[in-house]
């Protein structure tokens, strides 16, 4: 079994969908999470606040220095993540396709490295 990170991508500063559409998205995403759980592939998922709520820490000359804002300023942001545990990429792509339909946004699929153990 292998773990894949499914990231929800959306344009930074874009306008939110109207409330009715947003409600539909939310209920579709929750339904999909239940489907993932009953298929026993779900590891974790969660939505993220906007990137400007982020704080970056750097190790500099023995000290930890903080900066306000995201590490990478980008036109696209990660709006949320889901981790699935499945046999191979095709299975991950199948779930990612369902997630893209539910969120109506692009989904990036990225494999985790194997555990060293």
């Amino acid at each position: 079994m292998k773990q894949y990170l499914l990231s929800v991508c959306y344009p930074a500063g874009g306008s939110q969908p109207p409330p009715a559409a947003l409600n539909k998205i939310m209920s579709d995403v929750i339904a999909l999470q239940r489907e993932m759980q009953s298929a026993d592939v779900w590891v974790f998922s969660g939505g993220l606040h906007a990137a400007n709520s982020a704080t970056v820490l750097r190790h500099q000359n023995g000290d930890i220095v903080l900066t306000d804002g995201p590490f990478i300023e980008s036109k696209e942001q990660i709006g949320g993540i889901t981790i699935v545990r499945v046999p191979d990429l095709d299975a991950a792509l199948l779930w990612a396709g369902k997630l893209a339909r539910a969120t109506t946004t692009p989904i990036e699929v990225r494999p985790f490295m194997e555990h060293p153990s």
Partner: protein
Amino acid sequence: MAVLTRFLGDISFAEEAVQEAFTIALAKWPSNGIPPSPAGWLITTARNKALDRLRREASRSERQHAAQLLNDVEQAEEHDVRDDHLRLIFTCCHPALAPDAQVALTLRLIGGLSTEEIAHAFLLQPATLAQRLSRAKAKIRDANIPYRVPEAAELPARLQAVLAVVYLIFNEGYSTSSGGEVLRTELCDEAIRLGRLLVTLIPQESETLGLLALMLLIDARRDARVAGGDLVLLSEQDRTLWDESKMDEGRALMRVCLTRNRPGIYQLQAAINAVHGDAPSAARTDWQQILELYDQLMSIAPSAVVALNRAVAVAEVHGAAHALQLVDAIDLPKYHLYHAVRADLLRRIGRTADAASAYRLALDNCENKRERDFLIRQCQSLARH
């Protein structure tokens, strides 16, 4: 290669083992003679080399597991080899890989072309292509792209990706996009070889037959397409140079497709080329039938390029003025053939100045030297009329 990849689960590892086996064969066969079953000998030797390496790297647990599986390689039956071949094709043409990576992997691992040969065919530096290949192989390994034939539900879509890769290879050979040659025959030959392989592996899918028929029917005109290094249009070609045996093979495949009655984009394009092939001269081409086939193609796979080709048939059936109206509504500003078709239609209705500027637009968007020469000749001949 395909057998070992299944057992090892790692394309690069299998490749190295096979390469070692070939090196040993080159050293031994000239003096010891060729073994009774060369393929079996190579598989066994590659397997032993892989086992040696697994013992050396015994700390790697996943490869220890593979060592057990390797013992089964010798028991691989003929139909397993066939299935392994198919698995490797679907892995190479996986839609999660970039199209150029799919093409390079297919030519390298299925076609068996060397990195240098592929680089030469695509006018790339061997180092660039080697990097592209190793990146693709790393993704297959890291993302765990499965090594298997897709299930029935996904098969048609995934097969389309495989057919598209083979047709891309053929087209790059037949209408070379850049450089100084009209044709790169080694790519056409390789694509046809791959097409034949797909027909043996997946004979039940009509589009597989359609693709092979299409490539054969086009490739049959290869020798007539170039004269003295220059490009020759279909209407100007010396039809006695057409390869009748390739045409016949293509027609026979089309007859099988017709009895199945499950048309697709490759079968329809093959049918269009078969009509050209049946015409004793350009003037006696059955354009009405070609137009009907393009109408069908537009209904199942509409695209601007198909619309452009359909307009060429419309010009023959309903006249250049009518076709020009259709062409003007198509949006393909970067495609040199769009401007070339438009220029030819303008010339035919006497708008010479407009035709000349259309030829210049075609030239601006064309990178193949022979095609450029052809367009320049066409443009110059305007002035003489």
